[in-house]
């Protein structure tokens, strides 16, 4: 979700986040109900068709699936070993198409629209003390903090390298301690910035 959104004016882009999320839920239920490899093939064609309809570049589409590659290979191998090729196609097909459809949601929906939707869905829980605005803000901050944390770990790793420490030599604590200290400082500063921007008012 970190900057994955690809702006566009396609039909898929113009659908509301709620409609896309509901469609995704229905599609996932239908996927697990399929029981023939040819049906899985049709589902894969439909998913590919949706990417074409959304005019998502093929590189971005493959980028959604790349992290799954090793898991798919392992799962397919285990299914071939302990079951048969049909089962391997069904299990990996469900995983692949589910990830592709979920990826299409993030590629065609801006983060604020997803957060707004989550906040709307949480409104009924207000009577139980849940604050949807705070949950939405927490979600946005979580997404924002991933690159911030990655940057901190990269800086600490480079500082170690500059002092001649590479790999796991020295100690994991030597990497974790400065990273945690810097993360806590960053969290403190982020909290101060939120107050300054009136987030808590």
């Amino acid at each position: 979700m970190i900057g994955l959104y690809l702006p566009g004016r396609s039909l898929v882009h113009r659908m509301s986040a709620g409609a896309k999320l509901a469609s995704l839920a229905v599609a996932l239920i239908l996927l697990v109900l399929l029981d023939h490899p040819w049906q899985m093939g049709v589902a894969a064609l439909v998913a590919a068709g949706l990417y074409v309809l959304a005019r998502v570049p093929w590189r971005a589409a493959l980028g959604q699936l790349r992290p799954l590659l090793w898991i798919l290979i392992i799962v397919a191998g285990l299914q071939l070993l302990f079951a048969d090729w049909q089962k391997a196609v069904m299990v990996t097909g469900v995983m692949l198409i589910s990830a592709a459809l979920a990826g299409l949601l993030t590629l065609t929906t801006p983060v604020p629209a997803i957060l707004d939707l989550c906040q709307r869905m949480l409104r009924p829980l207000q009577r139980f003390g849940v604050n949807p605005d705070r949950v939405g803000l927490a979600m946005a901050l979580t997404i924002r903090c991933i690159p911030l944390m990655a940057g901190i770990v990269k800086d600490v790793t480079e500082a170690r390298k500059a002092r001649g420490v590479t790999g796991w030599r020295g100690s994991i604590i030597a990497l974790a301690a400065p990273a945690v200290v810097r993360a806590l400082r960053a969290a403190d500063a982020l909290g101060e910035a939120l107050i300054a921007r009136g987030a808590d008012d």
Partner: protein
Amino acid sequence: MSVIRFDGVSHRYGERRVLEGIQLELTEHRIGIVGANGSGKSTLARMINGLVEPTAGTVTVDELDVRRQGKEVRRRVGFIFTDPDNQIVMPTVGEDVAFTLRRSGLTKEQIAARVEETLARFGLAGHAEHPAHLLSGGQKQLLALAAVMVAEPSVLVADEPTTLLDARNSRMVAGLLSNLGQQVVVVTHDLALLTEFDRVIVIEDGLVAADDTPAAAIAFYRALLG
């Protein structure tokens, strides 16, 4: 211009005195605050926005007490920090600027228009969909500035806004700060930034050591540094 008043303001962190008996009235357009590290200048600036409360005395902005009316004060006083990475709270540039306006009562279309206009004003046109963490250091500081200025505060406080920037980006941010219509209070070590300002205050060991025109205050500060 707003009237920022420090009336007998002191601040202590435990036993350590940070500010003592500060008496100031800031009414000028562009005000600079300089001082050595640990002199108390950042604490002084943070008090204007209510981020730090005085342990004695009062700080008011247009008669609003920052301790009791912090919410109203923060609507009038924008604040930008040294490290913009800590100020950006949303994943993309446009979303971060829009975050400031989320409770403004404006429609989505009005917010989008204001965001676009503000990004263009701060040299970030066309970056709305760009991941904020991929911007350069200078662009991040411009984003931090845009995200504060979109709310049109009457005062902008900046705590060492150019410290982490290279010379070119530093000049660009300094130029933008100098040309804002709002009242601007800048804490900085970059003395060149202050030459065109209206007033410069030197803080030394928690006290106002000089309060004068830029030329006189900077000369005093240079002498103080030896």
